[in-house]
């Protein structure tokens, strides 16, 4: 299905998301690939980025890969180790600048579905049952701004998601978020494996902002189920640099997050995994 490209799409997604994170900011990251964005941002251009995990870890140093926000690795070199409800409280109290969220479906106003793909069914009888909000709704509700990460697929970019797990700009009307009582600013970017989208400050509608090398506007539009607007000047993202690819490699030496089952099968046993992780530890950051 994928065309041959001079980069691995998942890597490009992590790097483009990382670029959304500025040095000195505080980022609240979700689960899975979103974890990688924070780690490589810290390695590349944002050494003073503070990462917060919803389990209760604030300001870790990333010496090994996290598979979950609650792995003990999430606490490596942390500045503060505290409770889940406390970091969610700090999130609600507007202490955190930016959040990174995965999504299964997104709509034109940046609302996210990560609960259930209804298909022919409904909430109670869905075609695909997804994990649910986790902390996603909380982050999208209250963080300063949100970056959404997801793969481009036709069924995923919709005029209206089946279920709003995490509010974007709701129905797009002025002040819709404030009227609902939400603290945070809402989504500023949707980073995919083919392009980056942003939101019109007036209409809150998602538009195409940046294409990855080798991707065309028509291809993007073919994935999007509404009449997608584009930036007056569509930008093209640069190819990943060697330094960037090296950072990704350092962040996950076994490629276990992007590579999943296939990468895990490359690892002989736990001892090889331990050795690999320790090598990353001592020669990494």
């Amino acid at each position, binding site marked *: 299905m994928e065309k041959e490209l001079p980069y691995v799409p998942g890597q490009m997604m992590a790097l483009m998301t990382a670029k959304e994170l500025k040095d000195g900011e505080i980022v609240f990251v979700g*689960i*899975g690939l979103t974890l990688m964005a924070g780690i490589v941002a810290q390695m590349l251009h944002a050494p003073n980025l503070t990462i917060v*995990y*919803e*389990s*209760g*870890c604030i300001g870790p140093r990333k*010496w090994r890969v996290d*598979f*979950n*926000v*609650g*792995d*003990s*690795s*999430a*606490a490596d070199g942390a500045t503060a*180790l*505290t*409770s*889940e*409800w406390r970091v*969610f409280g700090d*999130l*609600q109290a507007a202490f955190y600048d930016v959040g990174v969220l995965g999504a299964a479906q997104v709509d034109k106003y940046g609302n996210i579905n990560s*609960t259930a793909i209804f298909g022919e069914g409904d*909430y109670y009888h*869905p075609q695909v*049952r*997804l*994990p*649910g*909000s*986790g*902390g996603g*709704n*909380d982050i999208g*509700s*209250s963080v300063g701004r949100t970056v959404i990460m997801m793969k481009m697929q036709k069924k995923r970019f919709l005029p209206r998601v089946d279920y*709003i*797990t995490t*509010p974007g700009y*709701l129905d797009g009307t002025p002040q*819709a978020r404030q009227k*609902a*009582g*939400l*603290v945070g600013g809402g989504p500023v970017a949707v980073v995919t494996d083919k392009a980056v989208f942003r939101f019109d400050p007036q209409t809150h509608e998602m538009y195409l902002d940046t294409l990855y090398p080798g991707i065309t506007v028509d291809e993007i539009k073919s994935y999007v189920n509404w009449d997608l607007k584009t930036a007056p000047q569509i930008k093209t993202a640069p190819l990943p640099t060697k330094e960037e690819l090296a950072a990704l490699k350092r962040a996950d030496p076994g490629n*276990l997050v992007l590579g*999943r*089952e296939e990468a*895990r099968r490359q*690892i002989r*046993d*736990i001892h090889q*995994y*331990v050795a690999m*992780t*320790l090598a990353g*530890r001592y020669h990494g950051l």
Partner: protein
Amino acid sequence: MQHNQRRATNKQMTLAEAVSRFVFDGATLTFGGFIGRDCVAVVHEIVRQGKKDLTVIDDSKTDITDILVGAGLLKKWEGAYFGYGALGLAPNFRRSIEQGIPYRVEVEDWTNAAISMRFLAAALNLPFMPTRSMLGSDILKYNQKVKVIQDPFEGQPLALVPAARPDVAFIHVQRADITGNGQIWGFTGSDENKVRAAKRVVLTCEEIVPPEEIKRQANLTAIPFYCVDAVVHVPFGCHPQSCYGYYAYDVLFCGQYHEMAKTREGFLAWLDTYVYGCRDHQEYCAKVGWDRLFALQHLERQFNRLPA
């Protein structure tokens, strides 16, 4: 409200005793940790004892709940997240909801913050906590327990979530004394609230230490004895999850579970091997391999150690 009767007495018992004494068919449970430090060994014992019609109220607790669903013991899930993080979706949970195999589990969707507030409310003996999560979302459309009000002080919309008071909380901690004073290093999740919210509390722990050892770093005693009914010594009780300062996450073992559980037959084979096929947690450890467990301990201690 009945005043608490729990005293600083010796509460040590075996895992089998604790599960048998406190978990009943139809009980509502919660577990400590947060996708890390989850007490996996407890769930294996619950499955071995076949406690059924259970409800779990929790934030993100897939490693535990996916086994309960597959084993046919979880009646209802009131929670926020049912997935395997970077590993993917939860195979038994999906099969249950999408295909009704082996049955359809009842689901009530929440968010992590909302669940954490439900436990904070109960811990403080309050009927509810306010939160600014979930507003504007479809979670509110399907979850009738949340009440949205205009707050009487500032006039803004606010969601009220009811206190969660499970029958039993199982919490795995690094250190406890025999009376139930428990200390946690690393993130603490919602554990300090869960122990106060639940009617009965079982601590499992990596190490049992004398009371004087607890007093040396009293600021780390997240759990006072007066919340606790049982103390169980279960080293490596979180495997394949991590336990800060003791052992790292076993991504390969978790991955193997995840792949086997993609088919019903594969999951049942896994369950036969690692749960029904082990009389207790010691046998589970032996089957997993002590050298493997010590490798994970070695790995963790290169990164995190408990202060001396």
